[in-house]
């Protein structure tokens, strides 16, 4: 399935896009998204441990399965305030 992933802050600058579309297997998890992103953008592997993934505006846990049509977003360490 094709899934759109939004990018922000330094992740957006590294990739050079505000969003990317990934081709994922059904039943994919957070780790599958990061593996895919790393294979396409190897620079991400330098700081991937600091990244979180959100689905439909909520932080994902390791057990959550990606739903087709969901809005995914890579969340770098936040710094609001």
């Amino acid at each position, binding site marked *: 399935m094709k899934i759109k992933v939004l990018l922000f*802050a330094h992740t957006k600058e590294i990739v050079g896009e505000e969003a990317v579309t990934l081709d994922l297997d059904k039943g994919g998890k957070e780790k599958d998204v990061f593996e895919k992103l790393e294979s396409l953008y190897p620079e991400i592997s330098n700081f991937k441990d*600091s990244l979180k993934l959100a689905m439909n505006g*909520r932080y994902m846990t390791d057990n959550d399965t990606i739903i087709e049509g969901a809005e995914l*977003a890579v969340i770098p*360490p*936040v*710094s*609001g*305030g």
Partner: protein
Amino acid sequence: MFKIVDKKIDCESLIDKVYSTKAGAVSSFIGTVRGFTGDKQVKYLVYEAYRSMALKQVEKLWEEVKEKFDIEKIAGAHRVGKVNVGEVSVVIAVSAAHRHAAIQACRHAIDNLKKIAPIWKKEFMKDGKSCWISNN
């Protein structure tokens, strides 16, 4: 109520939103852009937000604050885009029947907003360097 704005925040009108005849106290937090990081001079900051998620996360946080503390109302605003040194980047206001609840709730709200809201700041220094900041 929580909003993300790209113009100067009107602190007074934001604080006005939490006034209540049931309240005997209003506590507020105003975050401003510091002109120094260590010994380096900051020129300005640029904030970026994942708007829809930030609104959702912070509204959830406000619900948590209302459950945890005996308060009347809570409101907040965060600015995005370029924010100059000395300008306001974030405001939170809380009203409660008594001051302790208002102050504690306000502190809990800003501490957790900084942890959970998908908002990022990039620091632009006077020496021409810039970098994304992490709160942790």
